[in-house]
């Protein structure tokens, strides 16, 4: 009774959590006409707002891909900037439809939080950046170093584990945000800056003289980052998962946003035909229109395009593909086939 009164009293401001049965999210998303996507409040290359207030980045492109698949329009997505602390609550409570915010796929998160990881859009790992002048070549030489960290993730634990297992000592200066940690590093407060490797490259650009620092080769943890959805809604999970896979498959087949129209008209390749929804199961299995994957490639691009444009050589970050190269090119990005 009291609950009812309370709920009625706060009706204006309250959004009830959508029931998490299969298809509910997809239907709800279609009904409201846009995807509500949780992103980072700011992470160079992954999600950041440009001066026109448009969000851009590798994580953002996953959201846009989903919107393109569902609506045929990559712009039908709204972004909710989230901090690390809030991200899971926001997803659990239905505030957002999907979370695309450099979230590491771990057992605990997959099982205990009522969440489902839809795939991996970036294989990352914790690394170290040092001042070049120290002449350090390997993380093993870092005994006694002062290390700048950004608080609030598993970074601190990985670091402690690594130094303990190698019998080394360190001094950790834990800042609230990445911006402060890189400034601390630049000001010489610490010898080493540790973060996910993708971030180290981004943080390096923030230095007045980016050439004065080097990223060490060691990677001390596995950080597969990917989009997340709520548990118990298979249909929605599959839409998000295959939106990502479509981008990777497109790269593998050499279909880009530039040549996709041409391909669609001319291709005789059965694989490409299936990818572009010209034959095979098309959009039926995902309860989407047949041109869902075409829309993704046309409007967002394939994985390689998104990567290069946001974090790769076409961006200020200039991160090498590394682990994120296709399986066929020495990396581990591998998407199940569309057939």
């Amino acid at each position, binding site marked *: 009774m009291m609950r009812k009164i309370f709920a009625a009293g706060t009706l204006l401001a309250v959004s009830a959590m959508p029931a998490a049965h299969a298809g509910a999210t997809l239907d709800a998303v279609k009904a409201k006409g846009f995807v509500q996507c949780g992103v980072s409040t700011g992470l160079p290359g992954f999600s950041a707002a*440009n001066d026109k207030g448009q969000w851009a980045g590798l994580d953002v492109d996953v959201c846009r891909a989903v919107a393109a698949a569902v609506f045929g329009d990559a712009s039908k997505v709204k972004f909710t900037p989230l901090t690390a602390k809030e991200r899971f609550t926001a997803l659990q409570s239905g*505030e957002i439809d999907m979370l695309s915010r450099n979230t590491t796929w771990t057992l605990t998160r997959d099982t205990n939080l009522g969440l489902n990881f839809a795939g991996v859009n970036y294989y990352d790992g914790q690394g170290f950046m040092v001042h070049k002048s120290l002449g350090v070549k390997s993380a093993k030489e870092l005994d006694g170093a002062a290390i700048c960290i950004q608080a609030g993730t598993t970074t601190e634990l990985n670091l402690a584990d690594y130094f303990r297992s190698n019998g080394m000592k360190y001094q950790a200066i834990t800042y609230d945000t990445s911006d402060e940690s890189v400034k601390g590093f630049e000001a010489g407060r610490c010898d080493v800056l540790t973060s996910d490797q993708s971030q180290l490259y981004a943080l390096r650009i923030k230095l007045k003289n980016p050439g004065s620092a080097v990223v060490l080769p060691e990677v001390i943890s596995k950080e597969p980052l990917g989009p997340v959805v709520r548990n118990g809604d298979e249909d929605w999970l599959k839409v998000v998962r295959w939106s990502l896979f479509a981008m990777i498959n497109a790269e593998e087949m050499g279909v880009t946003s530039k040549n996709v129209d041409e391909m669609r008209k001319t291709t005789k390749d059965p694989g490409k035909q299936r990818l572009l929804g010209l034959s095979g199961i098309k959009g039926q299995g995902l309860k989407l229109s047949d041109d869902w994957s075409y829309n993704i490639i046309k409007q967002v691009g394939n994985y390689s395009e998104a990567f290069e444009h946001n974090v790769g050589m076409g961006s200020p970050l200039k991160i090498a593909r590394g682990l994120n190269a296709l399986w066929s090119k020495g990396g581990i990005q591998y998407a199940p086939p569309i057939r």
Partner: protein
Amino acid sequence: MSEMMQEKYAPGTHPDWEPPATEVGVIGWMRENLFSNWRNSALTLLGVYLVYLIFVPLIDWAIVNADWAGDTRDACTSGGACWVFVKVRFNQFMYGFYPAEEYWRVNATAVLFALMILWLTVPRIPLKRVAGVLTLFVFPIAAYFLLGGGVFGLSEVETTRWGGLTLTLILAVVGIVAAFPLGIILALGRRSEMPIVRALSVAYIELWRGVPLITVLFMSSVMLPLFLPEGVNFDKLLRALIGIILFQASYIAEVVRGGLQAIPKGQYEAADALGLSYGKKMVLIILPQALKLVIPGIVNTFNELFKDTTLVLIIGLLDLLAIIKAALEDSNWLGYSIEGYVFAGAVFWIFCFGMSRYSRALERKLHTGHKR
């Protein structure tokens, strides 16, 4: 003899009566205020040196050597401040991610608010009580619909797109306005003769005043969802506002209590003797006087809250400082944080300085008003 003098010269203009040059004009002023003795002179020189030490490099960096033109980072070459970054992002810092074609709604709200404040503060405009009621009850609703849209053909703008200085102002204004009634109730409760009511009020006030706002914001963002029934979830902005309002109410309660204490006992007695009930006594006699007394205190509280809104960045709301920080994550503009922070500092300073000036002027006015 003196009569003769007065005949020759108008009163006070006799050449012998003029003050010596060392007492008037620039020199006299300097002697009096800067070099009255050797210690004073030393202090003056020290002061001048300090000014030189601080302001010359500052002006050099911020103005002389700064870059203003252009719209990419390539335009920043001189080594001074790169104001291009602020220029390019200016709208975002002001409006957050509010759609550009809807900026007029934010502006309209701000103008509306400014008009209400003018009405409330300029002594010549009548009907203050009407203005008070409008500001407290009508304006917030109007502002909510104007900014949020979804009615009267206004397109909807979700609260996640509100940001920048707009959000800072919303947080501070709503925080104060909504906390006001609660603060008054608490202040009355603290002065109540009912022991349980008094104890609860004291406990509430001391509890909230005893903890830092940062933990309150933590609580509202992380714990509030746990307090509510399953499936009920507030909008993020509202969650933060609830925390700020509950927190702020305790500060307002203490300010109002000060005002209530300053009302002489005779006012209560006269109201009683006229047969006014408790509620009428408070609403008609005591509160109007007390609230007038506490306006400077309220402005100061507002000032504090305004600065404290910078803390909402820890719960992912993009207020002025947070949106500047977010802009610093744009890979095209990495590394211009000093310009961003200086800009934030300047904006905050202008607002807070203005408010503290106003509150002090008001205090002085109330002070003289009382002597009458």
